[in-house]
């Protein structure tokens, strides 16, 4: 069964008050998602444990053996480890705001019910995004525990990584949610993942630094949220530079705020025509 919601676009402009979520109503949406996750978390978290193990084995301990001097004075596996915290959060956010939201919206038709209660589109989107970021943070924490346990985190500042993961995941989530709220059919996700998420995973500085590459590569990477989140997690794990952390965090927060109206308007155009 393949239901195609069709293209509804962004619809007309909305009044500013319609773009501001009500915290109480957004939390009600968050609660629903958390309630469902609380039943599934055991099955859902196990792959998250295994995933970073495999990457660490293959890249950190496998490939890393050939990188004798490490990177920027850091052993290669310590270089890669914090990036895996960020990437776990990215994958979680990407799946939650694509397939999961699509399924709830178009197959289960849950949002038709939700929007006929006092919840408005801005509350719905905000609640879903907060949930997606919360889930991603749980995944990030799992990886943080794994890499700390095997001794790949050298700075005690790493304990502060989770809230930054939340902010980064919020930014990636709003991008995924925008895509979901606009696409006319589910098949288009292959473009989102192949042209968006996978390249971001490979070229955001998780596996190699930018200093040996042409300058434009880093410029391109600068425009992706994962780059900033990786810079933050690596900084925290190896010894942070406060100003840099602040700049990266501001980037993530600003992009989230700028993009937020897109899914709100698109959901409104699609479900409340």
């Amino acid at each position, binding site marked *: 069964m393949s239901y195609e919601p069709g293209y509804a676009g962004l619809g007309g402009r909305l009044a500013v008050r319609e773009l501001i979520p009500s915290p109480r109503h957004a939390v009600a949406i968050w609660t629903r998602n958390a*309630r469902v996750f609380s039943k599934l978390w055991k099955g859902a978290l196990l792959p998250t444990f295994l995933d970073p193990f495999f990457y660490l084995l293959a890249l950190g301990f496998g490939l890393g053996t050939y990188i004798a001097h490490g990177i920027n004075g850091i052993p290669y596996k310590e270089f890669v480890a914090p990036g895996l915290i960020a990437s776990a959060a990215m994958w979680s956010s990407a799946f939650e705001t694509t397939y999961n939201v699509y399924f709830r919206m178009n197959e*289960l038709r849950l949002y*038709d019910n939700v*929007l*006929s209660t006092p919840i408005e589109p801005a509350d719905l989107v905000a609640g879903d995004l907060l949930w997606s970021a919360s889930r991603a943070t749980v995944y990030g924490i799992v990886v943080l525990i794994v890499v700390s346990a095997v001794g790949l985190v050298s700075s005690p500042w790493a304990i502060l990584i989770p809230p930054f993961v939340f902010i980064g995941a919020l930014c990636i989530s709003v991008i995924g949610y925008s895509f979901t709220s606009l696409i006319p059919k589910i098949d288009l996700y292959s473009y989102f993942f192949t042209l968006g998420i996978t390249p971001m995973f490979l070229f955001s500085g998780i596996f190699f630094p930018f200093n040996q590459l042409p300058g434009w590569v880093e410029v391109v990477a600068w425009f992706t949220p994962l780059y900033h989140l990786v810079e933050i997690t690596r900084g925290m794990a190896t010894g942070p530079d406060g100003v840099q952390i602040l700049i990266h965090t501001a980037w993530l927060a600003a992009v989230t705020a700028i993009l937020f109206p897109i899914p709100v308007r698109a959901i409104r155009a699609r479900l409340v025509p």
Partner: protein
Amino acid sequence: MTGTEDTAPVVLARSLGKSYGGRVAVARIDFQVAPGICFGFLGPNGAGKTTTMKMIYGLATVGEGELRVLGMDARIERRQIKSRIGVVPQETNLDGDLTVRENLVQQARYFGIGPDQAGPRADELLEFALIGDRADERIHALSGGMKRRLLIARALVNDPELIVLDEPTTGLDPQARLAVWRALERLRRRGVTLLLTTHYMDEAARLCDRLLIMDEGSIVTEGDPGTLIHVHAGREALELDLAEECDPEALVDSLGERANGHELHDGALTLFAEDAEELLRSLDHDRFPTESAMVRRATLEDVFLRLTGRSLREGD
């Protein structure tokens, strides 16, 4: 409460219209729903009933004209309106990831009801829907009738003043329909205003105090069921299965004023009259041979078919 509040319309539409793209779904209609009654919208598929309901419960924006629900402007005070009404949608959109009881608890949360009150409220509604023993099962384990009753229970979490039901019994077996009707009758006795759409004339006749028939986006007629039957069909109907050589036009002409009206469909002629027996006796049987004849009471079905035509509609 003052007297004016008691009688102020629960829904008031003035020149209410809605188009999707270039297609007119609702063409500037006027109606009002008095408090405490069961108000039914009848009409063939694509008549504009669902769109009208959606504008009332906030899943479609008001296109043209004015719509007031519980005295509030549906264009502006959508959230406030939604907090005081209940909705039973046409599609079963229960939350399949949650249990039966959790569906109700979660719905209460959407309405801002705290966790300590949501639980008892859910249990109360499970009893109302007669599915208390299925509380911890997943949705897909329920029968169609139970899902429908759960949808009605879900629409009650906020103790609404108005409940909008879009085809509440479509697809249900007779026992399940009866259970839904009983639930709706209990609600009406409590003074809740019900607004429903239906294809079923027996449902409309049984439940509704007042009916509105829509076709192609416009209102065809409005009134209480008895009056509609009387005005548009008369008291009785005579169904004739005509012989092949019988000319239906000439037959109708020969009756003149004695018949209230007629409906012709595939060689079956239905004539409406105050006394159908009398009409049958007065018929010139040599000139107009018939295979069979049957006298029955006129029904809402006759009104509906006369006003909206017998032809099948495109679409669904």
